[in-house]
């Protein structure tokens, strides 16, 4: 069946005007009702292979994260480990429409973004294990994944610190007169940092070619967004104050995110002015491995969101539309398992850095 025969479901690329604050009943989901949201959309504008590839990425991220969790328990992965489980559709929808020349800057919940960008799975895993072959030579760890050659500029662990860096990368593009777009990821919690507001103003007043991509998973660690922000869910009025266009999208719908982002990218590339995208999403697990994630949110809330797990809804949709057969999906699953197993083997067998390497790369 041609997917274009079905009506489009999710709203994408909608520029929202300022709306009033949310009611207390809506607080837990921030004005967004996941139960009323439909299954993921499909679109004629993305070809079949790409739609299927996006599913493979989803599986890759999910399994990568699960594997990291296992190896954390085994002591092979250490430090703070923030998993992306639940948010896969957002990162994939946001990153896959970028060109290779575009830049990505993100925060500590970065493995999903790195995999969606196509960073080498082996070398990400090796970084998790702190090995010499890791992307940051074992010195960065889970929160500090970098691949400058792929214009993946970190992995930053101080909340809000990545935003000015991204603005600077965008400034360089403006200065050099390229058409390169910079995309910076951050969470709802980061919007409470001064750097967020300062950077928005800078980007707006200088008209920088940047996409502010907020993954609103409704919690900053244990703090529900409605408890720490006036207006809770509604960021469009904040953006309005900075004269930055706002796009709101269902972060559990990979195609909706992708289309909204594609529109934004085209616009930023053509006009060079900033855009703010908010994706409403949810992490199914704790904030980090140290947090069971069940103290500050109701089981029922997690359950509601889990029903919209993109790893369940999206393949269902692919099957329904005849874009893949169960056998295709099984093959993908097997190939992902093989990729993850190979990455673990690579990381396990890689050497530790020599002690002398601690002194390398302090200066250029």
């Amino acid at each position: 069946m041609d997917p274009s025969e079905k009506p489009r479901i999710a709203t994408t690329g909608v520029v929202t005007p300022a709306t009033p604050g949310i009611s207390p009943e809506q607080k837990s989901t921030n004005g967004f009702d996941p139960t009323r949201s439909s299954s993921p959309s499909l679109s004629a504008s993305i070809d079949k292979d790409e739609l299927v590839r996006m599913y493979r990425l989803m599986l890759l991220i999910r399994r990568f994260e699960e594997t990291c969790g296992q190896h954390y328990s085994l002591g092979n992965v250490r430090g703070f480990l923030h998993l992306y489980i639940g948010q896969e559709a957002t990162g994939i929808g946001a990153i896959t429409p970028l060109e290779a020349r575009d830049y990505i800057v993100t925060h500590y919940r970065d493995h999903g973004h790195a995999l969606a960008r196509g960073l080498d799975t082996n070398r990400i895993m090796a970084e998790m294990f702190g090995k010499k072959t890791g992307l940051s030579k074992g010195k960065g760890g889970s929160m500090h994944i970098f691949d400058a050659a792929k214009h993946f500029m970190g992995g930053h662990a101080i909340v809000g610190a990545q935003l000015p860096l991204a603005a600077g990368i965008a400034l360089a593009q403006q200065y050099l007169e390229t058409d390169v777009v910079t995309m910076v990821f951050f969470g709802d919690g980061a919007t409470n940092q001064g750097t967020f507001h300062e950077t928005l103003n800078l980007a707006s007043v200088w008209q920088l070619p940047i996409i502010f991509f907020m993954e609103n998973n409704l919690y900053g660690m244990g703090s529900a967004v409605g408890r720490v922000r006036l207006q809770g869910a509604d960021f469009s009025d904040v953006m309005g104050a900075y004269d930055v266009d706002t796009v709101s999208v269902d972060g559990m719908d990979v195609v909706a995110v992708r289309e909204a982002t594609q529109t934004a990218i085209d616009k930023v590339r053509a006009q060079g002015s900033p855009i703010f995208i908010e994706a409403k999403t949810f992490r199914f697990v704790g904030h980090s491995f140290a947090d069971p994630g069940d103290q500050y949110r109701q089981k029922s809330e997690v359950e509601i969101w889990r029903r919209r797990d993109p790893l369940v809804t999206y393949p269902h949709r692919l099957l329904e539309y005849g874009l893949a057969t169960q056998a295709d999906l099984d093959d993908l699953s097997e190939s992902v398992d093989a990729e993850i197993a190979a990455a673990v083997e690579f990381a396990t067998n890689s050497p530790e850095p020599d002690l002398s390497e601690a002194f390398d790369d302090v200066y250029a």
Partner: protein
Amino acid sequence: MAEITIREAITQGLAEAIETDESVFIMGEDIGEYGGAYSITKGFLEKYGAQRIKDTPISEAAFVGAGIGAAAAGLRPVVELMSMSFSLVAFDQIVNMAANLRYMSGGQIKVPMVIRAPTGAGVQLGATHSQSFETWLAEVPGIYCACPSNPHDALGLLRSSIKSDNPVIFAEHSHLYGSRGDVPDDYYEIPLGEGKVARSGEDLTMVSYGYGVHILEQAAEQMAQDGVDAEIIDLRSLSPVDYDTIVASVQKTGRAVMLDTARRTGGIMSEVVSEVQERAMDYLDGPVMRVGSKDVPWPYNRNLEQDILAQSDDVIKAARKIISF
């Protein structure tokens, strides 16, 4: 007398202050509903209510600054930073405002607040999350700085920090939260600026604070097997530094090693070395040695991090340069 952990000692000190002084309130990220990243304030919100236990947005500059303002207006805020590394976001408020307000107002304003934060490296958190800025802040006139090594001192220092009419940085080494020790039942305080001889010895004076004291204890035990009798001084406060106790010890031993678990260069222990050199010159049989972690950003890899960290072997190596054993 009860044996408790440092975590419990700090919890007790905070609870006590909340219960006995209406002007004391606590604020910080995830200290209320979540119970604190290190569970120090677990159950506080339910027990003391939202006026006394304030969850803040992730806005260090704003809530540390607001703590300063509340203190200037007569309250006694205890502000928790989730990590000493995040103090950088609020550094302007701490250094330019908290420390300077009294002086530049000619003594009109006081800032009775405590800024508590877990500190230290060693658990593979990498460059941005492993830093020990208490060693920078200790240099700033107008603020005090405490850094306990055991539950007894943690409680005593926290009491005097909250009672102090000055801003106090209260640095809690994250390795030590589970560390146990006896705490008297009767009320006591430990004044800021009062160090203590943690182990007496005749041959060598070793000085540190916080987790560093535990490293010195390991080193002292090992040196004892080689017949060296080391004295350990626990500074307890990094500002003011108790020079009298250090100098008295050095007058006895003639030799000194200073340990900072933070980076070796530019920290407060460099300052201590320099001051002791001047004050005790006539008694010294050799240079005052300085041991610290190596001068690079903190790596994630475990082997690298352990190698960068100052360890008891480094202390012993430094000791061997000024005393033969």
